[in-house]
């Protein structure tokens, strides 16, 4: 099993020494191929960005030439203004940001704590629980999605009307229905347990001699040494929650709680204006692209880490 804490940069350097680079004569066709492939992977995204700045008639006029990919002609932010006029797009963005941030933070805490107990503490039942958690990895979300709609529609929730607590029935159209089902994650627990297991146990013993309780050992000894695995789990949680579609499609009908992906799809169905649809799509893609480009290494390492599954 590959170690997950390996920096991709280090691995790359290792591989560089093993295979000799192609000879200079072979490089031109190689670069040509790489550039062609890049065009294939980039053209839809560039087309989206550029079209979001053009009025519809110009988008169609430019289709036949390279102008489709260039910010030329009549450029403006009118499409973006149009989106904000038509739907509460900011509200949807804030909903998604809130749901994503809370899910990631709660997930990091709950799963790392479980991973800690499962890898660094001695207790009866540890192996059984670990095996059970890993066994649940085989259940795909799509299998439980429909029954879960039926289930969350019946769950109670405590609301406050002023100061008076009221028990409400049903979680549909709420934030918690978008957050709580995705907090505990068997794969995250597994990644934490694996990483924590690789930290020397003698550190815990030393802390215990000093009179530390287990939670202090978790917080003061293990967490500070585990930056990479926290980054990995954060990224592996962030992407699917931000991009989630099937689940909110079924459990969030109200506009006030709607996340961005549902928002853009409704917008797409209701609006014939492609420029505005491209503006909306750009708007919800940019945050992820910014996060990705700033944390590229961690992203790639996270994806590679998911390869140890199974």
């Amino acid at each position, binding site marked *: 099993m590959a170690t997950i804490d390996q920096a991709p940069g280090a691995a790359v350097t290792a591989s560089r020494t093993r295979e000799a680079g192609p000879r200079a004569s072979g490089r031109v066709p190689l670069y040509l191929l790489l550039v062609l492939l890049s065009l294939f992977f980039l053209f839809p995204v560039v087309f989206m960005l550029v079209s979001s700045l053009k009025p519809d008639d110009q988008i169609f006029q430019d289709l036949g030439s390279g102008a489709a990919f260039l910010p030329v002609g009549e450029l403006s932010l009118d499409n973006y203004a149009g989106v904000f006029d038509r739907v509460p797009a900011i509200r949807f963005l804030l909903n998604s940001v809130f749901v994503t941030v809370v899910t990631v933070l709660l997930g990091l805490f709950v799963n790392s704590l479980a991973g800690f*107990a499962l890898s660094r503490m001695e207790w009866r039942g540890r192996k059984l629980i670990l095996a059970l958690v890993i066994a649940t990895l085989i259940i795909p979300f799509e299998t439980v999605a429909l029954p879960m*709609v039926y289930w969350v529609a019946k769950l109670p929730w405590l609301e406050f009307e002023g100061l008076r607590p009221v028990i409400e029935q049903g979680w549909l159209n709420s934030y918690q229905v978008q957050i709580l089902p995705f907090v505990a994650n068997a794969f995250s627990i597994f990644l934490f347990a694996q990483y924590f297991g690789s930290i020397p146990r003698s550190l815990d013993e030393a802390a215990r001699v000093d009179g530390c309780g287990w939670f202090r050992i978790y917080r003061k000894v293990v967490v500070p040494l585990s930056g990479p695995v926290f980054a990995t789990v954060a990224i592996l949680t962030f992407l699917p929650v931000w991009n989630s579609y099937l689940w909110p499609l079924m459990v969030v009908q109200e506009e006030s709680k709607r996340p961005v992906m549902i928002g853009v799809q409704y917008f797409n169905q209701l609006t014939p204006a492609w420029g505005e649809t491209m503006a909306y799509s750009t708007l919800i893609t940019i945050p992820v692209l910014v996060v990705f480009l700033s944390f590229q290494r961690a992203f790639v390492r996270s994806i590679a880490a998911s*390869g140890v599954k199974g």
Partner: protein
Amino acid sequence: MTARPGTSPGRSRTHARAIERRSAWAFVTPALFLLMLFLGVPALLALGLSFTNARLISPNAPEFTGLENYVRAFTSDPVFLRSLLNTFYFAAVVVPVQAGLGLALALLVNQRIRGVNIFRTVFFLPVVTSMVVVSILWTFMYQEDGLINSMLSRMTGGLVEGTAWLQQPSTAMPAIIILSVWQGVGFHMVIWLAGLQTIPAELYEAATVDGAGAWQRFRNVTWPGLRPTLVFVLVTITIAAFGLFVQIDVMTRGGPLDSTTTIIFHAVRKGFREQEVGYGAALSLIFFVLVLIVSLIQRRLTRENT
């Protein structure tokens, strides 16, 4: 907790054990509780509901109907059979194409050349773009008067007249396959790259000393070393392909003429949109059995090799 003065070492050790046990349970309980609530219960519910005629919102309690839902799926629901067929068609093309292209890209960007990191980033970019956005974008490009047709016409000097790709039963699924591979291949390129880097450098050196050419090195060193990665890549693509939903829901809603309806799309249509959650649960379980079969095959393949 350390031994307190005045207690025997034996007692304090038992005491410490008890504290360790209690703390451990306190640490795993939140995660276990949530997993039970949002995975355990729904999984059991899926099984239970699949033997009933439960509706999503109904004043009547569900009635036990035995295997009726399963019989219905395979004997009197032609759209479900079509969905199975479409899903297999999608998987049969996407799995080899995406795995193969992913490996080719990984080999390309695993070379010692300048700027290779930029190409890696570019190939990976679609992976972080949401499938909803990708689907909307490609729907626009696939229109009869859209970008794809203008480009085709221009590149061939007007020889190729495109069609409305998503409106033809024969072209809708291939069109969806293309964008799915475009979006997902970068993910598997990264997995392949990680696999390539597990192969010890000495093996390549030894092969080179023995006078092996590039192809022989690939055939005898790289490829055998990639066996575990291969199994993982094939299984993850297959399971993801079986779950095909977003592209269908956004782009075609199963049409035209049911040519793109899939297992999960049909399960959601029946179980959610038409509120027949009992039947939807049965379809979800059929999907689960398919995934289980693929996973069991994976386990066998991995065992044989270790």
